[in-house]
């Protein structure tokens, strides 16, 4: 009995001590220095010829250029040029690690521990683009686009709304997302140039190699920064206000929707439910990536195609237009921009070049006319 008592006391004491240690502040900070930005898996896949040594050199150069994980920096005054403050980026990083990392991943690759369970997948920032922006699809998004996503979330996906966070925190998170997007674009461009120039195969000392990579990086980043600055003047505006949703306008919109030249219904379906013949098949067809026979959605978005990931969550699923919500936003201007520039990184194309503003508004009016059919 004596021995049992001793054991019991030991267990209670051990639990108490463990609890105190686990709950004590400062442990999380103590762990973060190990964290680093890893290389883009697409870089590793597409440029396998770099070898581990080459990858290590590239990662080292990226860290030298953009700072370590604990201290992310946008070089060459890019933060100032975009109206982002370095303090905000730093604060955003700290918040990101707490609130975003488990889906979007430590390096912003959309590959956090929760990611495999989500349909659609969390956004990877590595490609330098997001799906729902107000800018042309060849340009990066603007600060306001990120702020809107943070506040509204992305309807009916795992991306929640952060509307009740303070404005300062939201600004910081949007700033850090821009950092990740710009870093991602730069990494891809530099990898491409290094491959093209064969820099990593040359006989160079480690210092020389590092120097060469950093020079390319500065050059590529300059272009990235410029495109972000320029994008702020490229936000898509409707030249005319949305006209009344008259019967005529809705009928014109419907005709356009079903028209063989726009092909809206080929993907969204004649009923607007998002399972048109171009994108969905109940009959078996060979998978775009693996070649295996399967049924369901036929295509993948760019993130899936780049990763060669024939997995749930990367399929291109055209919006069901009868459910009363749109992922890219409910406002008329959101729909206008969506039709004008499509969904960036996905198969929804840009119609801004083919349709007049009036035609786009007719389409918007038609789409609004069917938007609650599936929920009423």
């Amino acid at each position, binding site marked *: 009995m004596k021995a049992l*008592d001793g054991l019991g*006391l030991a267990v209670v004491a051990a639990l108490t001590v463990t609890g105190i240690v686990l709950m004590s502040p400062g442990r999380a900070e103590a762990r973060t220095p190990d964290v680093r930005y890893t290389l883009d898996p697409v870089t590793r896949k597409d440029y396998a010829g770099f070898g581990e040594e080459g990858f290590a050199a590239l990662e080292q150069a990226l860290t030298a250029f953009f700072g370590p994980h604990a201290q992310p920096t946008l070089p060459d005054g890019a933060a100032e040029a975009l109206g982002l403050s370095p303090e905000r980026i730093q604060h955003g990083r700290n918040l990101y690690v707490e609130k975003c990392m488990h889906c979007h991943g430590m390096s912003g690759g959309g590959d956090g521990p929760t990611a495999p369970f989500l349909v659609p997948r969390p956004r990877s920032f590595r490609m330098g683009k997001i799906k729902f922006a107000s800018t042309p699809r060849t340009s990066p998004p603007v600060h306001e686009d990120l*702020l809107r996503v943070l506040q509204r979330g992305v309807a009916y996906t795992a991306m929640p*709304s952060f*509307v009740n966070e303070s404005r300062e925190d939201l600004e910081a998170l949007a700033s850090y997302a821009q950092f990740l997007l710009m870093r991602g674009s730069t990494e891809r461009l530099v990898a491409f140039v290094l491959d093209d120039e064969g820099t990593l195969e040359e006989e160079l000392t480690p210092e020389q190699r590092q120097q060469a990579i950093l020079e390319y990086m500065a050059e590529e980043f300059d272009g990235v920064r410029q495109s972000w600055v320029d994008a702020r003047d490229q936000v898509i*505006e409707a030249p005319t206000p949305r006209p009344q949703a008259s019967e005529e306008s809705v009928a014109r919109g419907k005709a356009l929707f079903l028209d063989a030249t726009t092909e809206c219904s080929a993907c969204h379906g004649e009923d607007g439910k998002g399972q048109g013949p171009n994108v969905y098949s109940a009959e078996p067809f060979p998978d775009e990536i693996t070649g295996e026979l399967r049924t369901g959605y036929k295509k993948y978005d760019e993130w899936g195609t780049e990763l060669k990931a024939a997995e749930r969550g990367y399929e291109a699923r055209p919006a069901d237009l009868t459910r009363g919500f749109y992922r890219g936003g409910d*406002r008329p201007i959101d729909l206008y921009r969506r039709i004008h520039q499509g969904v960036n990184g996905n198969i929804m194309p840009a119609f801004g070049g083919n349709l007049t503003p009036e035609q786009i508004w007719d389409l918007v009016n038609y789409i609004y006319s069917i938007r609650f059919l599936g929920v009423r």
Partner: protein
Amino acid sequence: MHRLWTLLFGAAAVFAVGIFFWAAGKSGYWFPENVSVIGVDIDHLYWVITWITGITFVVVMVLFLWFLWKYGDERRPGKAVFTHGNHTLETVWTAVPAAILVFIAVYQYGAWKEAKFRSHMPDSPLHARVLAGQFEWRIRYPGPDRELYTDDDVEQVNLLHAWKDQDIVLQLESRDVLHSFFVPAARMKQDMVPGMKQNMWFQITRAGEYEIACAELCGWGHYKMKGHLIVHETKADFDRWYQEALGRQNADQRDPSIWERGE
């Protein structure tokens, strides 16, 4: 050595009671201040039940510790004696809790009826539909035409606007798993079951901002499924906000303000 256990359990009991009273002084029992009409009744019930269980807890702990102390003494000679029970004692300790339960069941009935019986739902139009999903609240107002899913609806995420003294009638739905809509400051909570439409109603007596929390474990992000109930001073203030939100939602040009919570 055996008596050490008495001290350990005694310390735990004193600790629990101590925390209770410490919390009282610190922050009113960790309750946000009640701001709803029904909350007065619910708080009263809370105290009735707390007194009943509190007294029972103290009595049980005292007896428990006394037995531990007395029979934990290793110097006590002889073996323990087993008895085959005491009918009087058993009858009493079954009848007394049963009577207490019946009392609580009858005593709470009025408040329950007021808060949850459909026949007591106020006869005012639906204020908003709350659609819960992992892990957010989508709140859609029917707007001036009082019909959901028309062009004058406003939909916002995680923000529920209302006004003081309004009979707030909500329609609750879940789009995926079990959730529970909980407004601690109003003392109101309602589970949401996928496929079911439920109603909830309450009245807030003070303008301000109150927390909405999910009170049913609904997945890994349950802890952050949080919203805010914003109670305006007057209906006119609410209407002003509504028109502004509707305007923002109908933006067909560049958005004047990207801030969902207003400037």
